[in-house]
């Protein structure tokens, strides 16, 4: 009886889920990339994170803020893991406003590892005004803030196309296959050879898109590697404990004539 009912439930749900495509017919599914950070034991590709940071710094950072990250994060375990000297040098390359000093004046000084990433604009309004009325979103948690996550971000970065016939675009609006509604106000900023990677990797559009997406995935989930590692340990521990408790339960219940 119960088995039959379970079958009924499963079948009904298959039927319901088969209705789904009606709703999302006009959306193009993002490209599926085999990211190294996927899966139960996924970790970030260190070199890719470092290259991704370079792309962010040289390309994205002129419009997009990452206000929840600090320069010190770049040297922390599970991230790009730049050396302490490198992190200090990266931080020092930015002029950070500080203050007020004892005279009540604001002043600028070279950045320190404890500083937050410097934002390109003083506030959202300034960022919006400078970008044709479209606010370039803060990228700290962007990968978590988009359906499709890293696949979606990567797909948008490589998804620029000429608009199909019949689609006219306003000035400052671009056609993108994967963007919701296909219209995006961010121009296609990536072109082959745009950045010169320190490690000699060829900077194709695809390579840069993958690297910067990896960097953004880490920025959104800096705890990912530790989370995966701890998770595996926790689950193994729980399974062992469950087994022991199960055996104890069987032993205790053997005193009564009821099955457990």
């Amino acid at each position, binding site marked *: *009886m119960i088995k039959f*009912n379970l079958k*009924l*439930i499963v079948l*009904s*749900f298959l039927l*319901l889920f088969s*209705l789904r495509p*009606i*709703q999302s017919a006009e959306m193009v599914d993002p490209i599926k990339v085999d990211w190294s950070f996927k899966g*139960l034991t996924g970790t970030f590709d260190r070199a890719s994170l470092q290259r991704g940071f370079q792309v962010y710094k040289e390309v994205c950072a002129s419009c997009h803020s990452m*206000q*929840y*990250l600090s320069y010190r*994060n770049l040297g922390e375990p599970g991230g790009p893991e730049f050396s302490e000297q490198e992190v200090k040098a990266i931080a020092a390359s930015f002029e950070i406003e500080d203050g007020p000093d004892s005279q009540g004046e604001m002043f600028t000084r070279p950045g320190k590892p404890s500083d937050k990433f410097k934002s390109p604009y003083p506030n959202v309004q300034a960022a919006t005004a400078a970008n044709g009325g479209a606010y370039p*979103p*803060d990228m*700290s*948690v962007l990968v*978590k*803030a*988009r*359906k499709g*996550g890293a696949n979606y971000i990567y797909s948008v970065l490589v998804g620029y196309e000429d608009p199909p016939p019949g689609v006219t675009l306003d000035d400052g609006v671009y056609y993108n296959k994967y963007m*919701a509604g296909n219209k995006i106000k961010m121009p296609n900023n990536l072109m082959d050879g745009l950045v010169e990677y320190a490690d000699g990797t060829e900077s194709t559009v695809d390579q840069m898109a993958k690297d910067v997406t990896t960097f953004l995935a880490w920025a*959104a989930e*800096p*705890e990912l590697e530790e*989370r*995966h590692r*701890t*998770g*595996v340990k*926790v*689950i193994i521990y*729980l*399974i062992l*404990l*469950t087994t022991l*408790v*199960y055996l*104890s*339960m069987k032993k*205790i*219940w053997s005193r*009564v*004539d*009821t099955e*457990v």
Partner: protein
Amino acid sequence: MSEHEYVPKSKAGKWFNDRLPLLTLGAHLTDYPTPKNLNYWWTFGGILTFCLITQIVTGIVLAMHYVAHADLAFASVEHIMRDVNYGWLIRYIHSNGASMFFLAVYIHIFRSLFYGSYKSPREVIWIIGLMIYLLMMAAAFMGYVLPWGQMSFWGATVITNLFSAIPLVGDSITTWLWGAYSVDNPTLNRFFSLHYLIPFLILGLVVLHIWALHVPGNNNPVGIDIKKPSKDTVPFHPYITIKDAFALLVFMIIFAGFVFFTPNVLGHSDNYIPANPLVTPAHIVPEWYLLPFYAILRSVPDKLGGVILMFGAIFILFVLPWLDTSKVRSAVFRPIYRQFYWIFVLDVLMLGYVGAMPAEGIYLVLARVGTIYYFAHFIIVMPVVGLLEKTDPIPMSISEPVLTGGAEPSLARKVNDKV
């Protein structure tokens, strides 16, 4: 309840117990005669207690770092995720814990519906349980608002706006709830305050829930009254404690799977976008556990009607013990009701599914059919089936074979008393 008098062994114990009989309570909880045939659906009470305590403990730690201010809340959550030691773990346990709590409570409620645990003499346990469930929904809703993301803000806007459907005073009530003329900083502040308060109200009700349970004792899969203590019962400890512990550990493995490997799958990606009163998300959806009620709300073309039906869907459960006319508790012995039970389960699952979809086309049709059936189940099916159904023969006791040729529970009880 166990009848025997407990006397502490030590002198100090006796001295204390005469003044505050905590040791007697402990002995009662340990010896508490429990039906020996409880299946694993009965382990969710213990699991729910674990969920409540987990939410309270992680919540207290989160509140040490969270800032309830419209300009700072989102950033403070990111601070917890990035800078607080194991902040990510505590927050993910708390956010996934809410979902696990509801998963467990739904299994607990549907177990009660199947085995007739809400029926006499357990109506008060059932009603207290529903009050806990209502408070859980309030706590979960307000908790979801606290990170002040897009879904937080717009979810709060949609739900608080429901009150504006009340005739004459609706708008005033909504403004009063907001503490402003829209969802804003005062709203966030009071939601935080209430979100911290409600779990302790739940805790108090849980004590009453268990107290009320210990008066008649547990129902059981056979649904018959049993003599306590007898060969049909086992002491709560160690038999039930070890079984609950085993079930809890299995539950924790699933819980840990969510927390460590897909911590955001049950949430909505839009809630990682800071709240913006000027940009409405394409689809405003509540958390999964509220979706069936959301579907009911949206299935009615009239706002006030939708609100009444949505709340009615919950409040009708309060009178369920009196809508069910069957003399037999457990659906195991109710061949007709059992069919309707599973149809009802499917109906609620379907409502949950269409609640996540846009309210248009086939989804709206399904939501309307589902809503009508939801109420028909309680108003028509439960009373009518209970009166007309020919139930299967029920056993005299858990240990005894089935009493042949009749389904008179009172007879079974009489025979059982002589055993």
